[in-house]
């Protein structure tokens, strides 16, 4: 069984994994990161989105062995000192969720989107989140939350 090393939310793990083990199952079942849900099983819905070496990826479509040596950030690694990440706060304040199933993936995809464009337009947000499905909200509040999160993250950068 291959042995892999991964860093998840800042913690280093060494794990023996069956080659067919999917990254999302490693995260949830072995490392207890159940904040990352399994959604559609076919890489459509984006609920399982995480950051793999700083870029968004759908963890249901990556083998754990493929992540060997990689740095992984999940929704559970976003908060600092018990304080939510500005994007999480913006989702909360703009009521950008109803059932909440898509939210971890939405938040990760939103943060990924801001790497490229720290002040995205509504259109950029809608395109940037095209790989993340929400069946409750109709997306309006999600787009609003990403705008707000972007503004707050920008301010956080500008005023340390």
């Amino acid at each position, binding site marked *: 069984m291959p042995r892999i090393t991964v860093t998840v939310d800042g913690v280093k793990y060494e794990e023996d994994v069956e080659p*067919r083990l999917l990254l999302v199952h490693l995260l949830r079942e072995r490392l207890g990161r159940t904040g990352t849900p399994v959604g559609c*099983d076919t890489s459509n819905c984006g609920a399982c989105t995480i950051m793999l070496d700083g*870029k968004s990826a759908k963890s249901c479509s*990556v*083998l754990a*062995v*493929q992540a060997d040596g990689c740095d992984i950030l999940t929704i559970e690694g976003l908060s600092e000192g018990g304080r939510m990440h500005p994007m999480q706060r913006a989702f909360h304040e703009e009521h950008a969720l109803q059932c909440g199933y898509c939210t971890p993936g939405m938040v990760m995809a939103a943060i990924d989107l801001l790497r490229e464009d720290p002040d995205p337009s509504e259109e950029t947000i809608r395109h940037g989140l095209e*790989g993340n499905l929400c069946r409750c909200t109709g997306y309006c509040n999600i787009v609003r939350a990403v705008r707000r999160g972007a503004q707050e993250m920008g301010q956080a950068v500008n005023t340390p």
Partner: protein
Amino acid sequence: MIPAPFDYVRPDSLAEACQALAADEEAKVLAGGQSLMPLLRLRLAYPSRLVDIGRLPELKGVHDRGDHVFIGAMATHDEVMRSHVVNADCPLIALATATVADPAIRHRGTFGGSLAHADPAGDLPAVVLALEGVFVTRSEQGEREIPAAEFFVDYLESALRTAEVLVGVKIPKLGPGWGFHYEKFRRTAQAWAIVGVAAAVRRANGSIAEARIGLSNMGPTPVRAHAAEAGLRDAELGDQVRQACEQAAADTSPSSDLHAQADYRRHLARVLTHRAVRAAAGSP
């Protein structure tokens, strides 16, 4: 769902990868895995071994090689669509790649992987066909080159042999005077094309000197719209172009499925070809 069990090897060189593939007939190449993983999870594929070529340095990057651009098989979609070389010398590839799936999948999915997968509904096969790319492969028997017109053999089947790895694709530079457009029709944002049209058009004196048109999802393989291309030679913008594009579905054999009937796909091919050609010709 959970994939069926398989062995996994991650070779350190292209030579080792060829060896690992040659040692097991049921082995399959793992590139970015964005098409393969759903197939494994749905248990539509049962490879005995996956040979992970995703980290091989020989297969990475986009290179300017004078008269052509060489795109490494393991260049990710995200790298390709942002590459200055691609945007300068073969922008049709950047235009089409930006429509592939969604950002997270483009971070992992590779240029070579989606070509070797040979899905006629994919965007890049029709584009590389239209641009007359040349596929460079490696096996234990050595290197060979396969023109795009011979690469796509059948549904999900390429000319790659067992134990042969796609190294990259040479995309000839077309020079000044060419315009490009990729027109894709789909029902939802991240879906495959119901029909896609890749157009490269050389303009001269208010008319079209020549055109190359690749069609996605108009048969078991991507196809060139030869009849439309013939009609577009020296065609004047306006009625002549419109009439030529009416031939876009000639000699195609689109399937009927949940998304569209064959006759509707033929209709789309004509309409989308006209749009793509006009856009590529810079004509509103």
